[in-house]
């Protein structure tokens, strides 16, 4: 299986604060991976460095064998934890914008996802509720045919019905070529979704393994395992 993302001894400081403290992991193709950890563990920082928004102080990141740069960005579809759309945009403007920006944006897929997620293309993004906005963003990033999808807290503050739809969208996107990395601290919501987990604490990966391994060998749910690992951390 080919490696989609590899991070080697990633170190990042903001001022004196050590945010990433030697992060190592590799993600193979065709997996849904949960990046789990408490607030301030460094989850968002990892995603932002992979996206090339921050630069590592030292260490190496490769996406499908490419170093971070304009080439690597084409391979990634990123959902930030904030609304990154311009406030004047309607959903249809956002669709135009994405079509212009990304050659891999699939307009048919977008229409399909809009109906699946019950999005009205005419609505103003500013007047959308939090859950509706999240669905729009999910629709946008999954309409691209990327190799690596980075989702930063896609389910925070979303009602169970919307959550279900979003989760289904995430499932339907996966194929053997691409990998999805989801950062969250809501472990329970995505238990059944994940193939693999990475537990992050104080800028270090303190546990990594497959979800079935946790259930089969440890006889624990991911949440129990999370609790245990972080209690001892």
């Amino acid at each position, binding site marked *: 299986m080919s490696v989609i993302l590899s991070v080697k001894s990633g170190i990042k400081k903001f001022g004196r604060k050590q945010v990433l403290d030697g992060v190592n992991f590799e993600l193979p193709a065709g997996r849904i991976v949960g990046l789990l950890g408490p607030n301030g563990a460094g989850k968002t920082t990892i995603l932002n460095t992979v996206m090339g928004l921050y630069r590592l102080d030292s260490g190496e990141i490769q996406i499908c064998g490419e170093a971070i740069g304009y080439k690597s960005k084409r391979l990634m579809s990123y959902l930030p934890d904030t609304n990154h759309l311009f406030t004047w945009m309607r959903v249809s403007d956002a669709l135009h914008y994405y079509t212009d920006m990304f050659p891999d944006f699939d307009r048919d897929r977008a229409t399909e996802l809009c109906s699946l997620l019950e999005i009205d293309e005419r609505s103003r993004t500013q007047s959308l509720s939090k859950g509706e906005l999240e669905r729009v963003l999910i629709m946008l990033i999954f309409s691209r045919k990327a190799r690596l999808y980075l989702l930063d807290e896609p389910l925070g503050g979303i009602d169970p019905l919307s959550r279900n739809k979003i989760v*289904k969208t995430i499932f339907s996107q996966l*194929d053997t070529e691409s990998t999805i990395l989801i950062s969250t601290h809501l472990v329970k919501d995505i238990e*059944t979704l994940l193939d693999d987990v990475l537990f992050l604490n104080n800028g270090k990966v303190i546990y990594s393994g497959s979800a*079935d391994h946790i259930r089969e060998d440890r006889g*624990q749910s991911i949440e129990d395992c999370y609790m245990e690992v972080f209690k001892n951390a």
Partner: protein
Amino acid sequence: MKYNPTAPIYLQIIEYLKKDIVTGKLAAGERLDSVRTLSDRFEVNLNTMQRACSELEKQGAIITQRGIGSFVTDDHEVISALQNEMSGGLIDLFISGMQDMGFPEETIVDLIRKALKR
């Protein structure tokens, strides 16, 4: 579908599909939906569904023909073996539960007889 979070999901799906086969909900020789459709239905990710299917195939419960699809086995021996396996599991569970509560053998049998008559 609700999953037990402490057991591997693919095993739970296997149990579910086996039950369908044993009860005839999935008839012998019937064609299964594609892995993608199944994964939508079970609301699990594709890898999990794939694993469940290949495990079922290994056990002979389903047969995959390349390029055509997967089918429930039409071998009745395999199906009745599945049936025995599943009933065996239930009975073991019941008996060990009863024994833990200190019921002697005859009482267990009597209780079952009474329950069946009801």
